[in-house]
């Protein structure tokens, strides 16, 4: 489920993958700039429950559509399904509505608004109505911080897309190779035998 390189030293990925390195699997991927997945406080319950039903509504229909479009531009359909087929937009709304706090939400909503504003200026239409090439141009500006707050938004949004994608059924089963019960361990398995890296 890791999406990035693990450049920094961190609790090692092997002395206990499940407990000791919960941090390594998440923070290690994105370094210090982890965009925290956070929860709504559910103070009325003895122990909060994580909502696994329908996401709390966070986006307007237009925002929701833009989130879907940008997700798909970041992780497009190629020889495997892309972000929309993997349910990434729904995951992002869950993150924003059920598992996030308002600071994180503001960063995403603010970024979407800034992209829309730039789209109006450059293309005289909202980003959702822009062509794929124009949306890619907007994302590139965002990535290069040429839009106010762009780079911060881009990093957070891309993390959301990648995390949502690689923890989805599509990401785990199709884009990567899923070994639910490996049975054995081979520490010198020929790389030539795999055409997809393994889901973790």
């Amino acid at each position: 489920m890791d999406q990035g390189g693990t450049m920094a030293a961190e609790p090692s990925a092997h002395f206990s993958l499940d407990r000791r390195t919960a941090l390594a699997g998440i923070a290690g991927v994105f370094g210090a700039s982890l965009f925290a997945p956070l929860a709504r406080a559910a103070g009325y319950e003895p122990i909060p429950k994580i909502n696994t039903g329908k996401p709390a509504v966070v986006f307007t229909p237009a925002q929701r559509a833009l989130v879907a479009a940008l997700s798909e531009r970041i992780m497009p359909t190629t020889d495997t399904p892309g972000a929309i087929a993997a349910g990434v937009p729904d995951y992002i709304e869950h993150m924003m509505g059920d598992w996030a706090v308002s600071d994180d939400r503001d960063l995403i909503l603010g970024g979407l608004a800034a992209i829309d504003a730039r789209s109006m200026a450059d293309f005289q239409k909202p980003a959702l109505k822009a062509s794929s090439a124009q949306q890619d141009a907007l994302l590139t500006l965002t990535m290069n911080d040429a839009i106010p707050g762009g780079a911060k938004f881009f990093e957070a949004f891309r993390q959301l897309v990648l995390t949502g994608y690689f923890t989805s059924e599509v990401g785990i089963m199709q884009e990567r190779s899923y070994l639910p019960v490996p049975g054995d361990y081979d520490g010198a398995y020929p790389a030539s035998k795999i055409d997809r890296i393994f889901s973790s």
Partner: protein
Amino acid sequence: MAATDRFDAIVIGSGVSGGWAAKELTEKGLRVLMVDRGRMVEHGEDYPYDGKPAFEIPARNRMPAAFTKSDYKGLNFWVQPANQPFFTNDRLNPYDFDAPNPFHWVRGGVVGGKSLTWGRWSFRWGPNDFEANQREGIGTDWPIRYDDVAPWYSYVEKYIGVSGGRENLDYLPDSEFMPPFPMNVAEKWLKERLETEFPGRKLINARLSNITEDKPEQNRTRCQKRAQCDRGCSFGAYFSTQAVTLPAARATGRLTLRPDTWATNVEYDAAKKRVTGVRLVNANTGAVEVVPARMVFLCASAMGSLHVLLNSRPEGSERSHFHSNGALGSAVMDHIFKVNIGGDVPGMTEFVEYGRRPGGVYVPRFRNLKAEELPFKRGYGYQGGASRRQPAPEGFGAAMKHGMRTYGGWRFNMSAFGECLPYDDNRVMLNFAKKDARGMPLLRFDVTFRDNELKMMDDAQAEGERMLRQAGLTNVTSNRGTHIPGEAIHEMGGARMGRDPGTSVLNGFNQAHDAANLFVTDGAMMASVSCVNPSLTFMAMTARAADHAVKQMKAGTI
């Protein structure tokens, strides 16, 4: 169950130690009541996330940070939605400390305790670990030596199954091993380089309670290399109460198990110097009863057992029956932790890993094994492993997506665990001004790391970097987080074993000096903590104490 039911023994707690106590005592013919404050978790059927991919786990198995902060603060990043049901909720079960000196108390919250979620690294302590206090004049001497425990290590190892490689190291004795989980190609390369560059230092296979051969007589299957142990393992491939000791105790027909049952204190007859029973509170109804027993095994986790002992007080007194000499609650320890070192292993990119081991490799202690001029006492070891780096995203779109289809190079990471010294003023006590839902005064921590621990962390960081660089790794980096005591989840001590009843709580058989029929066999017993993981020693000591207790009972002395 009527209060008039009598048990030969009550076991308080059902984790690593409690499960072993229940197994041994019932197999030796005793009728045993085992209580745990947590709810029942049955092997297999109550592991809701066993084998589930991320998309079938709430929040894709990422613990929402606000949820951790509100309810599981002490668990930091250990807690995930898939293991959260096995932990105690901190908000609903508070403990106490002064803000400048926090303590993180990670507690199991169900039957099986932390045996369900533990790290599973299983080492014998060596002769040196039982002798250092006396030799260095630190803390109090152990009343036992390695040879007293060695046969009991063998006994529990054969039963649970410990994987590892034979090394013949006098400072890290071999267990009765199943074959080890193999090293991968990068670790083998590093082993050769490191051991050549640093004669005397070793890089060895992890020693784990994950089994590499089936145990059909226990209905356990060898590890399937899924690396999701802390969700509970339906294969029974690692040691847990559920997979190993509870089935054995149940098979005797002499075990009564009561989950959802808090033990607040033991009842004590000061004239006879005996415990007479245990006061129990039903976690669901609040109903209180005192259940009598001829003998009590206190296995409520190190700090949990101290809580029960400290709260076992004469009517109207704030002083425990077992606090006669001032030793109870003092010299609480943890391991040093939070020092991490990593480096890139060159080449070998034609190989990847197939499968996910539950552990990697170990660099055993190499400091202060013989006379050395170092600014700290004792030593540390490193737990680590090598794996191929996950690919980093570049840009976005199809190029990024397809660029993430190959691994990065090999990276080796390791983390230090080191020995903390016993300081009498590292204490836990009761705070009578704050009480929990059962009316128990909160357990209050006053524990800090000292100069020796901080210098050891310095050394572990510097030596770790030096070893990896000199062995030929590149891009070597390290970090060192602030270590809050308890974060290693190896908290121990507070009811130490000792030769002298004036300075210790337990004798050489884990028997309370003040009550011959009270045994404490979890981490509270420790007079020092070695630098290796303690759970295997809890098991061996519990089996040894149970053997002694039953012999004494049959001889009529308790």
